[in-house]
């Protein structure tokens, strides 16, 4: 990629910080987004992560100006922008269904924002050409969007959003309509664009893998409220509660009796199960929730110490899925709990095995959290 290409879509007027202060949005009596406080630094890639209905799209539409706020304010450095209509904010947006103008050619779709801004013909042509080159669609410039594949349409949508040199790019689940292979490809593409152009991006997704792969910081939302804000590393290894843990792939959320507690270590046990874990959330009482990723487990060799004093979970294997170098195993404990683990050993349904997890991979939360049961 040549330097000139990058220059033509690099944002002209950047900003230091974009602040959302107490942003709230109600629909009738239901609160879609409640008191969102978030500061985005220029050049950052932020992912809003959560299941459908958590308020992430609402937050994005509020940022774009497509939804008026019910409360709070949005500030671009020291200018208040939440009262501006969308066309005066200068943000680019990529929609889930691409929202390409079906009656305009790819070239005129990409040039739409420039035509509105009355950019001179020559400059417009140059910038559109460069944006199309950036997303590798030059040879499709004169086609109508309906003639393109899903991935190509998505690239047109991205080119259309960045050619206006937006201060901020908003992306609303842009990959959710693509098949798995294309999704990976486009994910890399979006990351590459962000790295080479330094575009500040807010990206909405329900896919934690996408958020982890793309974002500098992840905002985990639940029912209109922020649960955790942090780098992918922080959110992945140190989720603040069982909800975030569940979202980050801690598939085993087990509500268990506490056997003993010393410092930040806690031992949880019941018949056929004993786990030592790291306390992540202060709690009192005699039950707690252990969160363990499937890949946190390994198989305990038979006859390794006496029963009841070492960690381990005895399970009967029920379902085995092949995953290349590993197998995904679903097993059941003596007390009927379902355990998901990924193991290097080849096991078969009906096998009785014992698995354990090192204390640093067992996160212990208070009993109030969600376990999805």
């Amino acid at each position: 990629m040549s330097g000139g290409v990058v220059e033509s879509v690099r944002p002209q007027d950047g900003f230091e910080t974009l602040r959302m202060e107490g942003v709230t949005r109600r629909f009738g009596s239901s609160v879609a987004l409640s008191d969102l406080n978030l500061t985005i630094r220029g050049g950052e890639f932020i992912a809003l992560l959560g299941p459908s209905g958590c308020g992430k799209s609402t937050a994005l539409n509020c940022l774009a100006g497509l939804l008026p706020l019910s409360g709070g304010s949005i500030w671009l450095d020291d200018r208040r922008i939440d009262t501006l209509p969308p066309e005066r904010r200068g943000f680019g947006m990529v929609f889930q269904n691409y929202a390409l103008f079906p009656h305009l050619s790819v070239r005129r779709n990409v040039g739409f924002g420039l035509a509105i801004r009355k950019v001179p013909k020559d400059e417009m042509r140059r910038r559109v050409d460069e944006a199309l080159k950036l997303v590798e669609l030059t040879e499709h410039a004169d086609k109508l969007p309906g003639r393109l594949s899903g991935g190509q349409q998505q690239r047109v949508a991205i080119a259309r959003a960045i050619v206006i040199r937006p201060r901020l790019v908003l992306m609303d689940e842009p990959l959710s309509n693509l098949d798995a292979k294309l999704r990976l490809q486009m994910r890399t593409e979006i990351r590459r664009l962000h790295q080479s152009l330094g575009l500040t991006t807010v990206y909405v997704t329900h896919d934690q893998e996408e958020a982890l792969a793309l974002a500098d910081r992840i905002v985990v939302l639940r029912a209109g409220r922020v649960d955790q804000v942090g780098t992918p590393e922080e959110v992945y290894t140190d989720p603040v509660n069982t909800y975030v843990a569940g979202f980050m792939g801690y598939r085993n959320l087990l509500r268990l009796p506490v056997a003993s507690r010393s410092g930040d270590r806690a031992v949880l046990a019941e018949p056929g199960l004993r786990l030592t874990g790291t306390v992540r959330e202060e709690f009192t009482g005699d039950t707690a929730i252990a969160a363990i990723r499937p890949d946190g487990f390994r198989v305990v060799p038979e006859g390794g110490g006496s029963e009841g004093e070492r960690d381990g979970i005895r399970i009967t294997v029920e379902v085995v899925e092949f995953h290349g170098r590993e197998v995904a195993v679903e097993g059941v404990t003596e007390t009927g709990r379902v355990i998901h683990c990924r193991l290097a050993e080849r096991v078969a349904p009906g096998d009785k095995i014992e698995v354990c997890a090192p204390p640093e991979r067992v996160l212990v939360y208070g009993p109030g959290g969600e376990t999805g049961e």
Partner: protein
Amino acid sequence: MAEPRTVADPRPAEPAPKPGPAGAPAPGATRPPLRHRLAERGIDRLLLLLLPAVATLIALFLYPMMYGVGLSLQPRSGGIFANYVEFFTDPYQSGTVWKTMRLALPAALFNVLASVPIAYRLRGRFRGKRLLTAILVLPVTLGTVLVADGILRYFGPRGWFNRVLLELGLIDEPLRLIYNYWGVMFSLIITGFPFAFLLVLSYLSGIDPTLERAAATLGAGPWQRVRRITLPLLAPGLATTFILSFVLAFSVFPSANLVGEPADETRVMAIAAYQAAFERYDYTMASTIAVLMGAFELVVIALVLLWRGRLYTGHTGGKGA
């Protein structure tokens, strides 16, 4: 949404080679039975289901129409085109073309154009939408005669409309709004608007509202969004709506008699045909006028379709598109 295809292949897939006897059959290959070869071309017993519709069409439309055309070519006197020559050389008859067009074209245009802003406002959901739509559509159910009666009372010299204007001092003497061109025009608008409105509303609902939001984020203000996105996508639908409204207005007959001036200003083609058939009992002339009505309608329709053909008519992203 287009089917996701591999990025490397932008061309549409090659059409599959035609099955069946597209070329010479390979030597030695046995020809499949005739029934199979016909089925491959879409000819099978299911086609019999079309029979009632085709029979009805032939009996009730095609035959009478051809009969009418034939009748128009058998004038009471003169050569086979004598009726047509008479129609165009007699200003009393040929003038009806202009009188009909003068009513039907503006009425259709007004109904379509007036529907657009109202339908634009009414798309999407809000409280009371059903009630409002019902009120707008109500005149369809009334029937021309009832509407004509209402027009006579409301727009008459002593009707509310004139009385209000007189009271307000806006006019010195009652406006003449019935038994002339305007009476028929009001009737055409009152009965034609609901059709146009319903059609435009459904065309508008077929346009994905996200498109306008996308245009907004790209910097387009409300008017630019309408002009650059919504109107171009709506235009083919407006053309179709105009054609249907025009055809409806062109065959105006009851209101031209009841609230118009059927002897002169609103002597439309339908009235001329009626007079030929039932006052002079010249069915051949009546048929001629009927055939010409069809011909003039087709000319207008062809012109509109020609314009529509130059527009984008593909999908518009929304439901029902």
